C-alpha cells in the first residue's frame, strides 16, 4: 500500500462522508449506527478499489455500498422506523374526533416549541405554501439553508410526536 494513495483516499472520505452518512441515516434512523456504517462503507470501498472501473461516479458507487450495508443492518436489527401516527380508531365517531383534536393540539404545541429559525420557514412552507425560493427571499437566506432548516424542523417534530405517542 502506498501511503500517498491512502492520503488521497482520506481526502475522498472527507469529500463524501456527509453524503454517505446521510444515505445511511435515511435507512437506519440512528446516527451512531449510521456513522459506523459510513465508516465501514469507506473501508469496504478502499478494499474494492481494484474492482471500481470508473464507469460510474464515485459518489454513486459509495451510495450503493452504504445503502446495501444499511439495508442489511436493518434486516438484522429490525430497526426500521414507523413514521406514521398509528390509527387508534377507524371510524369517524366522537372518539376519533377527540383523538384528532388532541393530535391537532399536540402538533400546535410541538410547532410552537420549535426554535424560531426552524419554526418560521416550516410555517411559511406548510401553511403559507410558499416555495423554497420564496421563503429564501422572504427570510433573506440561501436556498439550501431554507431546505436544511425545514428538514430539521420536520425531524424535530417527528421526534416530539413519537415521544408523545
Amino acid at each position: 500500500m502506498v501511503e500517498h494513495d491512502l492520503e488521497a483516499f482520506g481526502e475522498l472520505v472527507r469529500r463524501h462522508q456527509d453524503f454517505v452518512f446521510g444515505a445511511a441515516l435515511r435507512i437506519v434512523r440512528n446516527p451512531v449506527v449510521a456513522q459506523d456504517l459510513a465508516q465501514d462503507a469507506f473501508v469496504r470501498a478502499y478494499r474494492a478499489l481494484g474492482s471500481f472501473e470508473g464507469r460510474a461516479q464515485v459518489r454513486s458507487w459509495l451510495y450503493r455500498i452504504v445503502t446495501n450495508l444499511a439495508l442489511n443492518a436493518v434486516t438484522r436489527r429490525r430497526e426500521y422506523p414507523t413514521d406514521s401516527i398509528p390509527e387508534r380508531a377507524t371510524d369517524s365517531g366522537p372518539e376519533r374526533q377527540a383523538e384528532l383534536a388532541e393530535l391537532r393540539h399536540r402538533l400546535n404545541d410541538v410547532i410552537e416549541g420549535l426554535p424560531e429559525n426552524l419554526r418560521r420557514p416550516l410555517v411559511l412552507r406548510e401553511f403559507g405554501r410558499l416555495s423554497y425560493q420564496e421563503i429564501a427571499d422572504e427570510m433573506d437566506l440561501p436556498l439550501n439553508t431554507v431546505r436544511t432548516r425545514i428538514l430539521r424542523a420536520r425531524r424535530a417534530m417527528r421526534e416530539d410526536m413519537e415521544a408523545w405517542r
Partner: protein
Amino acid sequence: MRSCRTTDERLFAFVDGLDSRLDDHVAGCDECQQFLADLWTGELADDLSEPVMRTIRFDEFLASAARLGIDIAVAMAKALVEYGPQADDGEAGE
C-alpha cells in the same frame, strides 16, 4: 427543475423515509445526489477520514503479519528438511 424532473418534495419524502421508490433513481442521478449532498452537508458530527485510514492501515498490518507468518513457517519447514534429524538420516544413507 432537475432534468430528471424529481421535485424537492419527493426528495424530502425520500430523505424522511416516506418514499423509497426513488432509491434506484438516486443511485444513478447526479443531480439528485447533489441535492442530497447539499442537504446532508454538516450532518456528520465527526471526521471519519482518520478512523477509516487507521482501520485500513491496521488491516494492512494484519495482512502483512499473516504473510510474514507464512514466510516464517515455510523457512522453518525448509530448515527442518535440510538440517533436521531426517536430513542426517538421508546423508548417512549415501
